[in-house]
């Protein structure tokens, strides 16, 4: 009964999506307020019915209703409650349901919080959102219905893959989807603007907070996935340039570019058609990512949705959404031209450089990710594109972007003074040099490129600080005045400084962990010890401990440094009887400057265990930096100007170039 209610909720949501994407659009064209009012109402209704469907599926999981095929295939009665709940989206059907639920969430958010938008724009945004929802609800109902019943329910379920039985599953997919799907709002704004044939500075101001929210979620979501891979897979690595990772990274790159170009539209009323195109691209890349992951096209052997029907369905959806929006763009973009003067050395010029490099980086990752697919489809030649390719192409493109990132914010709008900006950055240059030399010496003269990378991180961090100091006139005005200036700074300005500093911290972590990782692989018996990066790891042996639905072999290492105890690490190797599979649980002790990382794997015939121990320098900085970036996004989101919007004033000034405030 509960499952049928969920199914029914899906159908009702589909009907509401149909209404949402048609009548209000006609109403907006004809100026019919009654029809337009249907848009927000349908968006809210969709959220309610999809919430109901999602709750129904969750219920089926919690009570282990194995007459529901999806539950029988992916759950087990002995699973801890947390994994019964997170298991809802640990499979194809459930994760698609989460996808549309989040889409509806954003639609409802536009309906509720979009009160400052002109009614026709809000309704058109909602209509586009409704169209996307319509397509995906059809997909779920026709190819991936999570509520299908089994005529003969099994006594127990097949269980959730042990790798997914981890708190990581609770947070990673929802955050990732909040980001992925969040770009649908930017997409809807872009398509709505194309329908209206008008992109104004006010439009950019409205679209920014939605992009910012999606970007922040995606940033956190990608990092959560990376962190999960880091501690769960036991390889000591955190990023592999895997196609699935790239699928989430592509919309992030496009979204980051969008975030910055929308500022140019808002402040200078130019780059309009490019910004609209970026908004279309960001969500299109999300859709392509969904397609790549869901259709199983990435592997010819085996995949998520083996069923070619599903792959084809999403491909058609993809073609309609991307093709349709690009066609509309081709027709309408010429009307979006602006006549504003654009000087190369200016804030907008720097933002354009940011867009140039981010777009190129995005195109490069796209090329590398899809090249093997296209090559095989077109020529039957098989080629592998792995981390060496991406490191060789992506890093040289992104490094100049990091250099420019410190300079751009110091340039004024309209006409900047590069010499003056550079002279303000002397301290950042000094920091870069100092950090580079220090890390080169600390690493024992190993890795000149990595030392340069560290210097770059130092440059960027100090650059962000210099920019902040400039704004509040630190050391140039009395401290009291600086403090009151700091209080008076717009939240968006704080957000930028914080986010840029976060990028610097991530850059340092990425560089150091990639270049100066120490690894030690050996067979150990109880009592053996091994020296890794100055720490002594003593193996105390392995004990068997029971878990809720697994049995664990738990190894114990005591870690000392110069005879002083540092940590006790207890890595586990777990065996899940339901799935007949092992998992590895790495034990990690962080010193904040490095992670001490230990894994045990197989006992040898002679009773010795093979162990691997890593010293991963600055890996914690990656996570810290990402959190700082996300906080920067959130801080910027609280900027009052994003909500008030002041559309009338901005529109009036749009022709005469809005004043440069931030």
């Amino acid at each position, binding site marked *: 009964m509960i499952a049928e209610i969920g199914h029914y909720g899906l159908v009702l949501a589909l009907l509401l999506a149909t209404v949402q994407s048609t009548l209000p659009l006609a109403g907006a064209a004809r100026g019919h307020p009654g029809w337009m009012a249907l848009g927000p109402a349908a968006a809210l209704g969709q959220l309610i019915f999809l919430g109901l469907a999602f709750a129904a599926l969750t219920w089926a999981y919690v009570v282990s209703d194995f007459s529901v095929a999806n539950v029988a295939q992916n759950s087990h009665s002995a699973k801890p409650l947390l994994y019964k709940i997170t298991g809802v989206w640990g499979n194809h059907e459930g994760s698609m349901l989460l996808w549309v639920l989040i889409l509806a969430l954003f639609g409802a958010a536009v309906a509720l919080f979009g009160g400052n938008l002109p009614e026709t724009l809000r309704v058109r945004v909602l209509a586009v959102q409704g169209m996307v929802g319509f397509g995906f609800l059809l997909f779920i109902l026709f190819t991936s219905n999570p509520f299908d019943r089994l005529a003969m329910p099994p006594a127990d379920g097949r269980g959730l893959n042990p790798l997914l039985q981890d708190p990581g599953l609770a947070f990673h997919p929802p955050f990732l989807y909040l980001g992925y799907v969040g770009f649908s709002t930017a997409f809807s704004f872009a398509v709505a603007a194309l329908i209206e044939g008008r992109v104004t500075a006010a439009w950019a101001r409205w679209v920014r907070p939605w992009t910012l929210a999606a970007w922040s979620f995606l940033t956190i979501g990608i990092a959560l996935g990376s962190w999960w891979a880091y501690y769960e897979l036991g390889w000591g690595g955190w990023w592999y340039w895997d196609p699935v990772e790239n699928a989430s990274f592509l919309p992030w790159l496009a979204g980051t570019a969008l975030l910055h170009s929308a500022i140019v539209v808002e402040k200078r009323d130019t780059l309009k058609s490019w910004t609209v195109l970026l908004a279309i691209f960001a969500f299109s890349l999300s859709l392509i990512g969904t397609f790549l992951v869901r259709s199983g096209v990435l*592997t010819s052997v085996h995949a998520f949705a083996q069923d070619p029907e599903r792959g084809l369905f999403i491909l058609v959806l993809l073609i309609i959404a991307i093709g349709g929006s690009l066609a509309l763009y081709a027709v309408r973009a010429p009307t979006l031209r602006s006549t504003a003067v654009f000087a190369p050395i200016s804030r907008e010029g720097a933002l354009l450089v940011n867009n*140039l490099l981010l777009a190129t980086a995005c195109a490069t990752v796209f*090329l590398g990710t899809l090249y093997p697919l296209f090559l095989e489809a077109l020529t039957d030649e098989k080629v592998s594109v792995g981390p060496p390719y991406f490191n060789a*192409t992506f890093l040289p493109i992104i490094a100049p972007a990091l250099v420019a990132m410190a300079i751009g914010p110091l340039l004024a709008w309209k006409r900047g003074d590069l010499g003056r900006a550079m002279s303000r950055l002397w301290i950042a240059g000094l920091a870069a040099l100092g950090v580079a030399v220090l890390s080169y010496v600390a690493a024992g003269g190993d890795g000149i490129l990595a030392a340069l990378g560290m210097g770059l991180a130092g440059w960027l961090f100090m650059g962000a600080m210099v920019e902040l100091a400039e704004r509040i006139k630190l050391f140039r005005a009395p401290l009291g005045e600086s403090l009151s200036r700091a209080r008076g700074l717009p939240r968006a300005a704080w957000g930028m400084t914080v986010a840029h500093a976060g990028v610097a911290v991530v850059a340092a972590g990425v560089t150091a962990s990639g270049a100066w990782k120490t690894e030690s692989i050996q067979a150990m018996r109880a009592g053996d010890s091994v020296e890794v990066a100055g720490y002594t790891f003593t193996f105390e042996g392995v004990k068997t401990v029971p878990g809720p639905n697994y049995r664990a072999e738990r190894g114990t290492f005591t870690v000392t440094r110069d005879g002083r105890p540092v940590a006790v690490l207890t890595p586990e190797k777990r065996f899940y009887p339901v799935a007949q599979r*092992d998992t590895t649980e790495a034990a990690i002790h962080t010193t904040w400057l490095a992670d001490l990382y230990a894994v045990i794997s197989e006992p040898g015939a002679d009773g010795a265990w093979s162990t691997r121990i890593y010293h991963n320098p600055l890996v914690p900085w990656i996570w810290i930096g990402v959190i700082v970036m996300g906080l920067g996004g959130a801080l910027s989101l609280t900027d009052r100007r994003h909500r008030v919007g002041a559309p009338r004033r901005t529109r009036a000034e749009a022709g005469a170039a809005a004043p440069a405030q931030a």
Partner: protein
Amino acid sequence: MRALLFALLFLALPAVAVEPEEILDDPALEARARAISKDLRCLVCQNQSIDDSNAELARDLRVLVRERLVAGDSDQQVVEFVVARYGDFVLLNPPVKPHTWLLWFGPVIILILAASGVALYVGRRARPIGIEAEPLTAEERARINAVLRDKDKP
């Protein structure tokens, strides 16, 4: 994400890759073996190097790489030996060949195209600020005066 993918693919188990007994006694040789392994694909896995994978085939390849190194092969000879057996597909760092030209030169081409696009855009827009427009010629001035005079007439 990779974890998710793996879990969903029901492929290789996430155990350690290089096992202690595979490791060569000579650290220099072992370091070379690791470097080579990182660029060789585990053919039965999803985009994973043999250094990361614990699949049987990856293990065989790791042992093979080490055997060749011990036998005195250079790094390049080892890679050529593996490629001769399994084809270019085994290389995670694809070689520059006609069918990968687009892959390798693509980013450069994209960057050049995008940069020229940006330069063109800015070039058209960047009326140098501070420099005054060219003064009118006597002829133009006369024409403007004529037009303005015409307008003033009732």
